[in-house]
């Protein structure tokens, strides 16, 4: 192997390592949630089997947000207080997402978009993109469009964007 090939390969390998491993690590800042909440442990101990048992929808179908202390109160005697949760799946402000349409009309399972989040045994760290400011886990437009196309649902700007 010539010296040129070795040097080129070394540069290639360095960049691949930096791009695939170092860059994602450096791009996201990890921020701790106010509590080490474990979905799996809660599901097993409380007998909760449905996501919507804790993550409720309002009467109009909009998502009611992360559960507050009153949801915890029946099991936890001590006061849980108000917690400022970091929301992994929070959409940007210019997006209008209806849980009701996706869950009730399209009958999608929560895991279709959120993945096996409810089965996580360990707390899921909130990773914030240093450039865009968004969560690493927030769904991007390509994912939405791909799913809509697969299900032959309209893909129009105004369906999702404010």
């Amino acid at each position, binding site marked *: 192997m010539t010296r040129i090939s070795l*040097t080129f*390969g070394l*540069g290639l390998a*360095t*960049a*691949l390592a930096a791009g695939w491993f170092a860059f994602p690590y450096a791009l996201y800042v990890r921020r701790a949630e106010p509590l080490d909440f474990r979905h799996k442990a809660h599901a097993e101990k409380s007998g909760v089997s449905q996501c919507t048992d804790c993550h409720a929808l309002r009467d109009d179908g909009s998502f009611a947000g992360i559960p507050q202390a009153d949801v915890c109160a029946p099991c936890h005697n001590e006061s849980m207080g108000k917690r400022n949760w970091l929301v992994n799946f929070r959409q940007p*402000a*210019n997006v209008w997402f209806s849980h009701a349409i996706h869950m009730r009309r399209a009958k999608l399972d929560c895991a279709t978009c959120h993945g096996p989040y409810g089965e996580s045994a360990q707390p899921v760290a909130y990773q914030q993109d240093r*450039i865009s400011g968004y969560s690493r886990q927030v769904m991007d437009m390509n994912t939405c469009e791909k799913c809509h196309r697969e299900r032959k649902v309209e893909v129009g700007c105004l369906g999702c964007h404010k």
Partner: protein
Amino acid sequence: MELTRRDLLTWGGGATAGLLLTPLPWKVLDDTSKWTQNWPWIPQPSRAPIEVKRSFCTLCPNGCDLRVRVASGTPVGVSPGPQSALCPLAFGAHQLNWHPGRLRQVSHLGKAASWNDALAAFRKAAVEGPIAVVDAYPRRAGSSVMENFARRQGGTYCIILSAEERSLAPYAAWSGAPVTSLGYDFEHARTILSFGAPLLDGWGAPGRVPRLWSTGALKLIQVEPSLSRTANAAWRWIQVPSGSEAALAAGLARVLLEEHISPARAPLPPTTVAEAAAQTGIAEETIRELARTLAAHGPAVAIAADGDPAVAVLNFAVGSIGARGGIVRRREGGPSYLTADNLNGHFRAVLIDATVPWDFAPQADAEVFRFAAWNGGGSRAHWLLPAPGFLEELTDVPTAPGSAVDTYAIAANLSTPPADVRSPAGFLAQVDSALPSVEDIIHARCRELFRTHTGALQGEETVPVSRFAAPERLEEALRTGSVWVAGPPRSGGLRCRFEQWPQPTAPRATADWTATWVPPVLPPLAVKLYRESSLREPPAGRSI
């Protein structure tokens, strides 16, 4: 081993090639674009539960029915109501209030000034000489305030006709009826012969003709020199050289009258079918066949987009003037207004309403007070006065130009205007405290509708006016999105006097029909939709 310059370059080449095989450059590009969306000076929609409210678009006189998504008192999205369709501009209208071109400060000759300065200058002008008030959407409550002011001051109130009204101007001249009281009864027509009117491209109310067209019961024949989008979608496109439309109209009229295939009676036009064929380049037999189609598929109506009398006169031969499916006079009629084109005399000052096209040029030596919500640049006005933007003021929506039936709606204000913004009606009320307010006029109009007990309110359901127990209930229904609709037009309510066949005129450039209402700036969403939708041509003169 010694590192050479060649080693560094080779390593760099490998690193560059490697980076392109990683997500790094693409992710940085993607994240950077998202970062630019969140710069602190870029307005962000509120994060709050979305409410859907009803109102009406006030960007043009058609007053389309709107479903507005509102978060924390701010409109964040617009969609059409169940009986409506929207143009690209309306879809993005909620963004207009945040446009960088939004006027937020009074200015005098390009320098910042105050409302007190503007009021003092206007009061002085009102004392010194007559004032002209120019309005583009007459018959609103706000228009009534301006008209009242002009009358009380001994000034002049004049209007700018919409493209739809300009096309009806010949019938107003022949009948003596106000042009604002005339309309096209498209809903009962079976054939429309359009000379250049972009009927499927949003002419008039955007969804009106496309909805009728989609039923398949309407034949649309488009006469146009080039293949416009309407011509492309029409049942038939008749290509004629520019300027020969009047010859074709005369040729068609000649066939209709000579062959007695139309019930109408009128003198024969001087142009023969052979002459029409020679001028238009269309075969004689094609002209005859087209005339027979008009007669066989009636009611038919011809539209002269530019209001050319030599084309409009064809409706005498078709028999569509004052007839069902043709040109009709609405039940309620309407007053006759002076148009800005005919504004003569010397005025000390001209007050221009925010609805007037940005490029409207008043007489040169008057002091110009121009209300506008958005700054189009290059204004010749002495005073630029910031007006309420999209859905920032309560206003009523009278009958759309060109409509065959009278309607009345109230466009609720769903957004709070910036602090230093005033409507012309509010401004004039400070000059003359005896003027009625917009609210008072709307109350009075609702009481009048209640008193007449005619027509019905169309909303979630249709309710006859006679079923309302009190005028307040009727007004409440109107304020929450219902539309009052009068009965059908009177048959024979329009009589035009035929004198002679107009002489063919030189080709006239058809004015851009959107010019009378499109604001000087466009919202980003409308720019995208103009590029991607097939509804309307982008407005001329607006950079997109």
